[in-house]
Each structure stands twice: as structure tokens, then as C-alpha cells.
């Protein structure tokens, strides 16, 4: 099958690439565009390690086809920090030691940011419910939830 020409906007920059219909958005990000921050965990929509924001919606990039991205605005983990300055969520994950192996971390941070951008006052129950689609096999989640709560409090003190 012929490759399709895709025009998209990723992390604020216009990006064009060619994609086979069978390539996932995750494969295109990692293999075509060098954006290897999004991780392949299950590759089947269960683990959330590949999370990106797709026209404002948190999605699993492994279950979105790259060709679906035509005309879409995407934010990946690479677009979360402001240049060299870490996002409060990234700082909070470091300070709370909310990761061990780190494979799930980009997904958790993208997912948590998607929540806090819309619901800055999200409480612990809301955060736990929201992060149900992100799996971590190391931490037991508690430090992750604390990191998100701390970041939310920090962001409320100093709005971006």
C-alpha cells in the first residue's frame, strides 16, 4: 500500500512525514520523527506508556494510526518542558522519587498534565481515577499520585 503524506503539528512545530496505513502514531513518532520519549509498553492500548495529547484528548498513540494524525495537533512528552525548564510535574516526579525504571513515566506525566490543564483542583480520588489507564509495575502508584498532587498544588500557587 502506498504511503500517505501527513501534515501535523507536534509540540508547536509543523511536521510532515510519510506513513504506511498500518503504522501506529507511536511508531511514526519514534521511528520516523525521532521522538522516542513516548514508550512502547503493551502496544495494545492497556498500559498508557505511549500517551500523547491528540487534538486536546489524551490517547494511546499505539492504537491511533499515524494516518489519523493528518491535520491534528499533538503534544508528546518532549513538548511538556519549557525549553530547559522542567514542567512542575517533571520536577515533582523527581522530588517525590515517583519512578523506578521510568518506562511508564512519560505516559504518566502526559496523562497527569492533560488532567491538571483542565482540572487544576483535581483531588486524590480524581487523580487516581484518571490515571487508571496508566500502568506502573515498579512503584505501587502511591508516590506517583503524591507527585501529581504536589505538582497540582505547586501549579495552583504559580499559574503558568
Amino acid at each position, binding site marked *: *500500500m502506498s504511503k*500517505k503524506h501527513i501534515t501535523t503539528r507536534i509540540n508547536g512545530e509543523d511536521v510532515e512525514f510519510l506513513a*504506511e*496505513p*498500518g503504522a*501506529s502514531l507511536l511508531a511514526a513518532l519514534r521511528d520516523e520523527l525521532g521522538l522516542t520519549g513516548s514508550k512502547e509498553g503493551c*502496544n*495494545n*492500548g*492497556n498500559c*498508557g506508556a505511549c*500517551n500523547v495529547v*491528540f487534538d486536546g*484528548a*489524551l*490517547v*494511546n498513540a499505539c*492504537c*491511533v*494510526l499515524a*494516518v*489519523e494524525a*493528518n491535520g491534528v495537533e499533538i503534544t508528546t512528552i518532549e513538548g511538556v518542558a519549557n525549553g530547559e525548564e522542567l514542567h512542575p510535574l517533571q520536577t515533582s516526579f523527581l522530588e517525590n522519587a515517583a519512578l523506578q525504571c521510568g518506562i511508564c513515566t512519560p505516559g504518566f506525566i502526559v*496523562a497527569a498534565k*492533560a*488532567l491538571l490543564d483542565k482540572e487544576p483542583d483535581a483531588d486524590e480520588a480524581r487523580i487516581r481515577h*484518571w490515571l*487508571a*489507564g*496508566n500502568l506502573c509495575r515498579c512503584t505501587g502508584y502511591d508516590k506517583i499520585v503524591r507527585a501529581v498532587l504536589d505538582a497540582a498544588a505547586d501549579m495552583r500557587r504559580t499559574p503558568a
Partner: protein
Amino acid sequence: MIPVEFDYERAESLDDAIARLAATGGEGKLLAGGHSLVPLMKLRLSEPSSLIDISRIAGLSGIREKDGKVEIGATTTHHEVQQSELLRRLCPVVPEAAGEIGDPQIRHKGTLGGSLAHADPSADMPAVVVALGAEVHIKGPGGWRAVAAEDFFQDLFTVDLGPDEIIAGVQFRPLRSAGYAKLHQRASHYAIVGVAAALDVEGGVVRSARVAVTGASTHAQRLPNVEELLAGRPANAESIAAAAAVAGDTLEDVNVDLHASEEYRRAMVKVFTRRALERAAAR
């Protein structure tokens, strides 16, 4: 974990999608959210020659009030259903159930029409549309037709939808006194058992009840013996307990998997029927 080769086309309108689907000679599939279809294709359980993307068709998504009924477009996402103020006001069981589907990632991409067409035996929305007595609106090369939701679901992953037809949306008379109760499979959030109950209550008496179960058997279906026991009875805890006690007794082909045995599922059908009815009666 790589699908077989296929072509991808984006449909511009409902009729354009129908024409494109016909051109694939029955080998094409519609792509809406893709969160069931794409994983199946990766596992090579589904090998369509072409995917026709209907997710951008204007007018195929959205929630509207029309002639005393509510219409939900097929490509409306579960997230949009969950967030709908109109539905929360007129028919809260629908957003309640939509919020129980999977996780936010699934709800942002997954669509109502996709869930109904796929007809996973453990999907939530089939039970809800059956309990509400919804009509599924379908368009094909021959034009429009409407199917009652309870007739639409026929068997395991089997629905009354031709290979050249598209679900355009569902329509139902909104009802506040309806509830959904679900036993989650903790990892996938699919329903081990899910029950939707809709009560028509007047003066504290149940005029009629519609109760539908998902997760328990091959497809979403009504529980007629529960409905019969409720009709004409006071809408109180005693009637609900009596009706829930027979829930699932008529079910055949009860699912058995690593999450639940037949015995456990049958027991949970009773528990979650009671909870769904209590929720409906409290509204």
C-alpha cells in the same frame, strides 16, 4: 503485533463512507475510535483490506434533543457522552455508564457507534441502549432503517448490521429513573457483569421496567422475568429485592473465563441487578 497491509481512506460524508465501503466488496471496515479494531488488527484477528475513517464526518457526532427524544451520533466519544449536560439532565444513566468505560484514553477515542457495532460481550453501552429501548439508526446503499436495540444484538460479536451498512446514531426517549451498576474487571475495566435498569414509575408504582445485562452472556439482553416481577409493584426495596432474586435465571450460555465462573457470574447478576434497580428507583 503489526497488522496485515491495508489501505486507509477518510470519508467526507455518510454517503461517501457507504460508497467507499461498498467499493471494498465487503472486505473494508469502518474506523471510528479504533481502540477495539486496531488492537484486533495487530493481533491479526481482523484483516480488513481497507479502513474507512468516519471519525471526521460532520454531523455524525453530537448529542441532540429532537421531538421529545435524544439522539446520539455514532461517532460521539464516550468522553463526550460522559460530559454531556443535556444527558445528565434528561437521562443520567447514559453519561453514568459512559464514565465507567475503560480509562480516559479509551473514552477519548472510543465511540458509541463503535461500541455497539463491535458488540463485545462485556461492553457497557449495549446494556444501556437495550434498557432504554433505544433505536439504532442504520444507513446502507438501500437507504435508512431503524432496529430496536434489543434486536440489534444477536450473538457473540454479532449484530444486525450488514457489511455495507453504517450506524448513524441511536435515538431514545430520555428517562431519568434509570441506573447502571457494574462489576469491573479491575485491569481492563470491562464489565464482568453490568446491569442497566430503566423504570417507568407513577405514584410510587412501577408501571413497567426494562432491565438489560451485559458481560454475563454472549450479548447484551433483557431480563424478562425481572421486568415482569416489577410491573405493577411498589417501587420500593422489597419489590426490587424480590425481582433481583430471579435475575439471570433465564440466561443461557453464561460466560466463563479467568475472571469469573458461571456460578459467580450468576450470583453477581442478581447483586448488580438489585443495585441498578435501586439506583433507578432513587432518581
